């Protein structure tokens, strides 16, 4: 087997099967936790923390107030795992139920109600049932195509349900010349305008041609519904997403009901109005569930009260999510397996969603010798609703025999050797381990081997080297 430097960061083949992680770009830093090394604390888990303080309850609806619920990114039909798929639907149903309970006059679903445009019919049926319930209660629903349930020829489940009269579809409009004229819907005189999403942010060009003047001329309060990331608010995990800059949005809407970004956000934007992303109702992938472990997902109840907008975030009820991180570094496959087994045997997983993440390099043995499937079985036996495995970064040191390729440059060889040594060593401080550690060593040696420049005084030289070293250390600290 060819040697592989730790700088080669591609996942091992078996990790690719984990479909839950396919959308994940980069795990957020807060989830990177170090596994304690003492025997007593081999396992490390974060109990579902939700948020420290639950949001204040929604005040009762006042007379004369129009109240609506703003949901987005329900992703019904997501997850191949039956339990997770069911939990997802349940979360949606819970959101709808809560909206009804809070007295919403209408509901906006700002895209990606479904995970695909043609979902499993059982999922569609569950959703239709809920919508029918709303219709019976006289609560209007406004739905916008999202990037997942959009269909270029309007053959989406959205169109079926709309055809059945279960909701209003937002996003109507047409090009007049070079201008996109959107057709407003309305609820009791409140114009609701939607700009539908397309796959891969293709809707951006629609924004570019949007006839904003006509929209800005509409009377306020008015609502703009969209399903796109906004450049100025782009969270760091949506790195490569196509974003729409604020300047392409029509100005002066009381409320901008967003979707697409699976992270809750409220911004009062000067010159525009209140931009709100409610985040997902349950999530559609591993990363979403991780974030759910930290903060409960939910939706917004919005009151329009004599022109003013009041926001109330309502969390949905989902099972407790338990995150468990294990580091394999320096351990043998059997030793690591035992450690996991020990944890699984002793855990209380009843009614929980368990997310088990294993990472690091085994000192000996192969990843499949850890027999993660067996661990998962144990967790399920112990009452977990579901056990999600993430073994993407588990690898074995046995594959790392470094061979020096003489066709490589001195620098490359140096990097390889440093990489090899760092990968074999194990330090208390994680910043010194793995790729990070090797990078740090290389950066440091680079900073320290600088020579004094011809026109530089000793003092300046000293200051420069010192500054560079400090910068290297600072940025290493920063990544921890």
């Amino acid at each position: 087997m060819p040697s592989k430097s730790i700088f080669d960061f591609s996942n091992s083949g078996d990790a690719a099967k984990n479909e839950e992680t396919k959308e994940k770009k980069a795990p957020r830093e807060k989830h990177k936790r170090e596994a304690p090394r003492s025997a007593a604390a081999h396992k490390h888990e974060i109990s579902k923390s939700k948020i420290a303080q639950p949001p204040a309850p929604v005040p009762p609806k006042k007379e004369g107030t129009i109240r609506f619920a703003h949901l987005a990114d329900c992703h019904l039909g997501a997850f191949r795992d039956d339990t997770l798929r069911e939990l997802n639907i349940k979360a949606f149903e819970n959101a709808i139920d809560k909206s009804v309970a809070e007295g919403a006059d209408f509901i906006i679903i700002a895209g990606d109600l479904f995970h695909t445009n043609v979902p499993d019919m059982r999922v569609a049926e569950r959703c239709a049932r809920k919508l029918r319930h709303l219709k019976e209660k006289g609560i209007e629903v406004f739905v916008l195509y999202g990037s997942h349930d959009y269909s270029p020829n309007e053959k989406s489940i959205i169109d079926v349900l709309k055809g059945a009269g279960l909701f209003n579809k937002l996003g109507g409009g047409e090009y007049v010349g070079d201008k996109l004229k959107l057709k407003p819907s309305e609820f009791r005189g409140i114009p609701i305008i939607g700009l539908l999403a397309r796959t891969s942010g293709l809707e951006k060009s629609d924004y570019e041609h949007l006839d904003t003047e006509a929209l800005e001329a509409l009377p306020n309060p008015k609502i703009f519904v969209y399903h796109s990331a906004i450049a100025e608010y782009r969270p760091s995990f949506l790195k490569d997403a196509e974003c729409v800059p604020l300047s392409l949005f029509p100005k002066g809407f009381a409320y901008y009901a967003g979707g697409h970004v699976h992270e809750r956000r409220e911004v009062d934007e000067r010159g525009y109005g209140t931009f709100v992303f409610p985040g997902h109702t349950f999530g559609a992938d591993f990363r979403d569930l991780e974030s759910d472990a930290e903060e409960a997902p939910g939706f917004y109840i919005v009151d329009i009260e004599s022109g003013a907008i009041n926001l109330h975030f309502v969390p949905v009820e989902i099972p407790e999510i338990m995150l468990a991180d294990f580091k394999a570094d320096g351990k043998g496959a059997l030793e690591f397996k035992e450690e996991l087994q020990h944890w699984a045997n002793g855990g209380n997983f009843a009614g929980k969603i368990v997310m088990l993440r294993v990472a690091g390099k085994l000192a000996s043995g192969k990843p499949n010798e850890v027999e993660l499937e067996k661990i998962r079985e144990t967790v399920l036996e112990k009452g977990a609703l579901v056990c999600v495995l993430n073994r993407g970064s588990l690898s074995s040191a046995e594959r790392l025999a470094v061979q020096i390729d003489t066709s490589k440059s001195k620098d490359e060889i140096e990097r390889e050797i440093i990489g090899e040594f760092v990968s074999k060593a194990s330090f208390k401080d994680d910043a010194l381990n793995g790729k990070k550690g090797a990078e740090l060593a290389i950066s440091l040696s680079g900073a320290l081997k600088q020579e004094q420049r011809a026109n530089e005084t000793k003092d300046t030289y000293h200051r420069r080297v010192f500054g560079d070293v400090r910068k290297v250390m600072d940025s290493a600290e920063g990544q921890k």
Partner: protein
Amino acid sequence: MEICGQIVSGEHGEIFIRQKSGETLEIGEMLAVGENPISIMMVYDLTYGSQLSQGNLELASGMHIEGMGAGLSFMEENLQNYVIAKVKAVAYVKKNVNGKYEASIPKSLPQFFSKVRKVTSADFEFLSDGKNAEHSLYLGCLRSGSSRLKDMEITIDGPDALTHHILITATTGRGKSNLVKAMLWKLLDKEYCGILVLDPHDEYFGNSAAPGMRDHPKAKENVVYYSPSASAPKGSITLRINTKSVKPWHFNGVVNITDAQSQAMHLIYQRYRDDWIRKMFEESAEAASLAFSDERTGGKSGIEAYLESRGVMEGTFAALKRKISVALDIFEEGGKIIEKGVFTTKETGIGAADDILAALESGKKVIIDTSRLSSYAEILVGSIIANKVFEKYAEYKSAGTLDGKPVVSIVLEEAPRVLGASDGEINVFGRIAREGRKFKIGLIGITQLASLIPREVLANMNTKIILGNEMEAERRAIIESAAQDLSTESKMIASLEKGEALVSSIFTKFAIPIYTPLFNDIVKETKAAESKQPVRKYVGSDD
């Protein structure tokens, strides 16, 4: 072949050509001798020549103007009085048997008494010989004196020139920004480089009154425009930078920070990481004492107490905070954080620096309107992005993947502000000037006052585009650091009209005189060539 003069004397670097009567030679004009090989020469000075002695000439003039010269005139005036052009040979071009040009710096004199002609575009075919059009960097068309050889576009190799830095110098009104606009315009559909423009006059993107990059057919794909203004044109992104993107070293050489303050800054950063600036401002007595109850000293609380426990002198924090406050335009008033500029401690602008980096990395041109920013804030924004690019590209270099990345160049107006001599730490721009080319990062410095840029940096800017400049000291600074010997061109530089320039680069065989057409004309030309827009269809249109 039109003869315009003849070589009559001179030496290497100073050849005298007698101008043919009826012809007019100009300073800066290009002349040629021969067909193959061709000696290309440039006029750098003109004098009168006469067969008559000075005394005689004065007498003759006296007779004329004192009224005693009725009936007098010069017989055969063309023979007696004429113009002598001082020229220097700038290139020696040979076309070899397989049609390839070989251009070299002239080391011999053209044949004595050679007849001299004006140049044609054909004489400069060697300039485009073997060039990769995809990698070209447009500068204008060839110029000979004040005449323009419009069909002879002058380009240089972009990746080379950009990484070896470009300096554009001129006094006001000589066409600096027109040139930069033209360069950017022609670069917009080139993928080999990402360009970051820090635009303190908000002149490059364009608006309804003046065209700019936004009028380019490829603008949507390849131009990213950031402006802090809420009334910025559509498509622009609101410039907002989260303070999480700001690191202590971004202040190096930007804000004058003492060693003690620097130490304090790093301590705070180590403690709070990305939140270090927010914490500095948010710090209220209560929150701080909660966070540091174990490190409280003598009634002090918060960051200050923490710093003092680490040996930082009293007062240092306040001074540091004041400096950072001014630089970031973030102030604390009555317990509230007031953000007046583009830096924010809130939830927005988190990805801005990364987005800009990503755009540059994909060969886009990023224009940042800094017209409403304080000078500090502008440089800080630049410093943050430049640091990001530098760090990223250094990473690519060590990973061996730098080759596939586009060159990144940063356009700096009033370059001496950031490249000027300073006693303190060298900022990131100074670093790029000195070692950026190893990482495929370059600068395009624009200035009126090249003399304020340290010699070492000037010498590192290996392409100089010299527009008109009547300040002798400035011309001297440029000429002394130019890639070619321009000692005789000083006068010529002083007399350059708007749009006319001289390009001296280590990537050109000689200092090439160019003319950059008016940007508005370039825009019109491009627009005329543009094809019709496709018919658009909206998915929701059937509804």
